[in-house]
């Protein structure tokens, strides 16, 4: 198994320290961020509103994005699985859930799928579930055969722009969230990370 040393985009639940008073440099930074945000928003609005999606791709109408963070209640997902049944994330409350936004064209995603199959096998009986949210534009036609070929033993649903939007916009794939039994996000990982990180997340919540 490849070791992934750089866990650049993971957030986990933990304590915080009181912030120091804001320095002039910090005020400048705030101003800079504000200006950058406004400029970006203005450029986007003027440029091409049809090229954007919550998956930050193209060909979709613009969503409204509210960032979700560790500690927040997990937004609900109401999506169709590969058999056409409606799946609600909120129905899994009481379980530890790993929500994985992925796509069939995403190679880092495909590395993690066997791990999730193993986790589902190992911890499923202890109240754990994986929910894969496939973000392929082609939807069922590509995801269903892929899931069969990969022997995915957990629930896979067909994602949507609205789903990605509800989760704060999905900037890259894979993006994974670990949710506790109370339905709160306890970890967020963007990109391929070490398998052991996921397993520790899961075990700590079971």
């Amino acid at each position, binding site marked *: 198994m*490849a070791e*992934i040393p*750089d866990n*650049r*985009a993971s957030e986990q639940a933990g304590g915080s320290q009181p*912030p120091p*008073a*804001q320095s002039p440099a*910090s*005020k400048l*930074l*705030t101003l800079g*961020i*504000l200006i*950058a*945000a*406004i400029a*970006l*928003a203005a*450029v*986007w609005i003027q440029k*091409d509103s049809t*090229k*954007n*999606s*919550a*998956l*930050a*791709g*193209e060909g979709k109408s*613009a*969503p409204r*994005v*509210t*960032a979700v963070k560790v500690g927040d209640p997990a937004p609900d997902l109401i999506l169709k699985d590969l058999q056409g049944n409606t799946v609600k994330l909120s129905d899994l409350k009481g379980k530890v859930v790993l929500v994985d936004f992925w*796509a*069939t*064209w*995403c*190679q*880092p*995603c*495909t*590395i993690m799928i066997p791990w999730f199959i193993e986790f589902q096998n190992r911890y499923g009986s202890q109240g754990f579930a994986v929910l894969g949210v496939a*973000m392929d*534009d082609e939807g069922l036609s590509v995801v269903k055969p*892929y899931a069969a070929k990969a022997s995915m033993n957990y629930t896979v649903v067909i994602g949507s722009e609205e789903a990605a939007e509800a989760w*704060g*916009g999905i*900037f*890259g*794939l*894979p*993006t994974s969230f670990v949710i506790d039994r109370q339905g709160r996000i306890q970890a967020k990982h*963007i*990109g*391929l*990370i070490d398998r052991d990180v996921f397993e520790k997340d899961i075990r700590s919540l079971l």
Partner: protein
Amino acid sequence: MKGRRLQAAALVLLLAATAWAARQYVELTPPDPASGRPGEKVEVSIPFKVLAGYHINSNKPTFDYMIATRMEWVKSPLQHLGDTFPAAQMKAFGFSSGKKLAVYEGSQILKTRLAIPANAAPGKLTMEGKFRYQACDHQACYPPNSVDVKVTVEVRK
């Protein structure tokens, strides 16, 4: 404290703005116009640059599930004869388990071949298209995206 809250709010606003914006991982330099007479064939070089730290799949990716880089041209008076993509770079990444993948990184040149219609009048003819790609870095992959391309051919007498 108030300042820190304002900074956090500004950061959220920035993130929201960037979440809406289609991120580009490829920069395309407008190609120099080609020129030729009616009935002649011309070749146009289209330079593109993959941003540092990212790669895009080549036009013939290593695995069939990967999204290939390709050109999508809009019909034009110019006859499109074909595209020649640069040779792929074979590179291994953190997620490829040592397997080398056919990708493009850095500055590259795509060439497209066109035929000027035999009955074309002197002046400018253009053809527009989209350079379609899908980018990754060493850990994550990003949604398919495209960059607009416009080639111009000066038709001489």
